């Protein structure tokens, strides 16, 4: 009964266009999610058995220095108050200073994040370009050698630890065959040659038209990107296969065949169109996964990205950096989810 009255009261209020309501709802969800995220990271910072004061002033400080720092960090205030201050700071882009690097965490992240972004993006592109067609073919030729190969490739992707594949890859393609460049983002001789615009070396060097640097950067990124791409390929192709199998069994596919369409059109124009929606979600998740910083890959390839930044900071008891990095990753995750949601609305006529 209360719901009914509620509803009729709503009717009397100003009538908002449905898209505005949806937008408001989405924004509210985002806000609540991010607040939750901040709460969790804040609490992690508080429950970690690391004394934030000692981390700043060092073990040898006097009691007076300790007390001063204690007050400066605002640790005398109530937990709730501290949380509000934390949220306010984060919203203004202030994660505090990194103890390890002595710089603002924001500056640090702005420096390391492009490395991860570049790696993850290339990895995901590889995963999509190879994984989607492989999945589609595996579904179309179900049970054939293509399907078996896809399954085998996927199985290896699932079961081999990435650090092992990474090391073997380095050994073969760098150590023995010398096809690719070694660890790091760029060879020593090329450091500092690129004007920093986006922080993505491939993009920056291409804008400069400096193809020697581009080639070197590409040689460095291709192996770790291929490795990450391989893992998302395994996931993407498996999901694509099962989505496609479902669609290929549906009646509208028979309708398309009855019309006399070629099998290629039946598959890509009819069945594939219907899985784009689900596929977007899968790809967004795979991308978010790689963006989170693939710690192991970044460490093996000495890749100065977000994953290795957070790990090194954690080992150095540098909580500000860890929490800052965590918030960035969480935000990316939420952002990608919303993005895939928006694309969903765009591609699925039923969602409009």
């Amino acid at each position: 009964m209360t719901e009914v009255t509620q509803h009729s009261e709503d009717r009397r209020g100003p009538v908002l266009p449905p898209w505005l309501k949806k937008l408001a709802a989405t924004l509210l969800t985002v806000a609540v999610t991010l607040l939750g995220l901040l709460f969790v990271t804040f609490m992690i910072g508080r429950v970690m058995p690391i004394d934030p004061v000692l981390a700043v002033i060092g073990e040898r400080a006097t009691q007076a220095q300790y007390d001063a720092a204690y007050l400066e960090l605002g640790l005398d205030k109530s937990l709730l108050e501290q949380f509000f201050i934390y949220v306010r700071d984060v919203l203004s882009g202030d994660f505090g200073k990194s103890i390890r690097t002595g710089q603002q965490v924001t500056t640090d992240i702005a420096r390391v994040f492009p490395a991860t972004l570049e790696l993850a993006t290339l990895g995901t592109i590889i995963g999509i370009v190879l994984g989607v067609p492989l999945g589609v073919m595996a579904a179309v030729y179900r049970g054939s050698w293509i399907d078996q190969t896809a399954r085998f490739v996927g199985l290896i992707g699932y079961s081999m630890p990435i650090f092992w594949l990474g090391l073997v890859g380095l050994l073969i393609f760098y150590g023995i065959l010398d096809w690719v460049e070694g660890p790091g983002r760029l060879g020593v001789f090329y450091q500092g040659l690129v004007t920093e615009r986006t922080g993505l070396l491939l993009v920056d060097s291409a804008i400069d038209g400096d193809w020697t640097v581009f080639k070197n950067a590409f040689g460095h990124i291709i192996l770790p990107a291929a490795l990450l791409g391989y893992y998302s390929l395994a996931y993407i192709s498996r999901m694509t296969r099962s989505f496609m199998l479902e669609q290929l069994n549906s009646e509208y596919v028979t309708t398309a065949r009855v019309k006399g369409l070629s099998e290629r059109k039946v598959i890509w124009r009819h069945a594939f169109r219907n899985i784009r929606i689900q596929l977007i979600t899968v790809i967004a998740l795979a991308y978010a996964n790689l963006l989170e910083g693939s710690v192991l890959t970044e460490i093996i390839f000495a890749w100065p990205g977000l994953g290795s930044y957070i790990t090194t900071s954690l080992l150095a008891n540098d909580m500000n950096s860890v929490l800052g990095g965590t918030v960035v990753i969480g935000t990316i995750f939420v952002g990608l989810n919303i993005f895939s949601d928006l694309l969903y609305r765009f591609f699925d006529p039923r969602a409009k």
Partner: protein
Amino acid sequence: MSDTLLDVENLWVRFPTRNGIFDAVRGISFSLGRERLGIVGESGSGKSMTGRAVLKLIRKPGFVEADKMQMGETDLLTASERDMRAIRGRHAAMIMQDPKFSLNPVMTVEQQMVEALTTHERVSRREARSRALEMLDAVAIREPERVLRLYPHEVSGGMGQRIMIAMMLIPDPEILIADEPTSALDVSVQLQVLEIMDKLVKDRGMGLIFISHDLNLVANFCDRVAVMYAGRIVEVCEAGKLQEAQHPYTRGLLNAVPDLEHPRDRLEVLERDPAWREAPSVSAR
């Protein structure tokens, strides 16, 4: 029958399974002229498989065997997949049970209808569109301009099925296979859809294979009826004389139909005689 559109002799549809080969259709013969041939039978009697076999749309590992499958000038048995694609849609089309599933949910009515035509004819978009509009008009859809822009989920079941009919008839095929075209529709629109389909088929001089489990419907809408049981045709008769059918299975089916004027407490349950399975198929040629 002088004007034979389709001639099928000894058709088998077989599926290899772990326990040997399963035969969904077991050696049936029929022909179709410019007439309405009804195929009735219970679920699993092989009637849908017969329809799909004609278009060679039996999904692997299933396969079709026959002594003869002739559509017009084309021998379907030796036709390649490429030949079949030229036949499907252009010479023989099929309407399926539920437009909710048989129309592509993410394509507009226009995209789907235009595609049905452009697959077989080189026509401009404009021309294809105007033919689509004409066809929608022919299946009694009001505001065809608006309907072209709709997605399948935006139309009702009856309208969806009329769109389906319009789409399948755009390339002007000679044969239409209607596989339970009204079973998924509300009773109130079933007749309307059937009448539209019937009129189009008659006006264009097409051959119709009407697959249904509804005896009365088939008796009213068809010229000839073939009754299928366990993958065979057990009886063939003129639709008007269905009430005089001889075969115990047909009699049993007729007997199981409720009658408003003579209500019964219990409907008859069909007694199946194992001998029916093995009795040779009756030819409907």
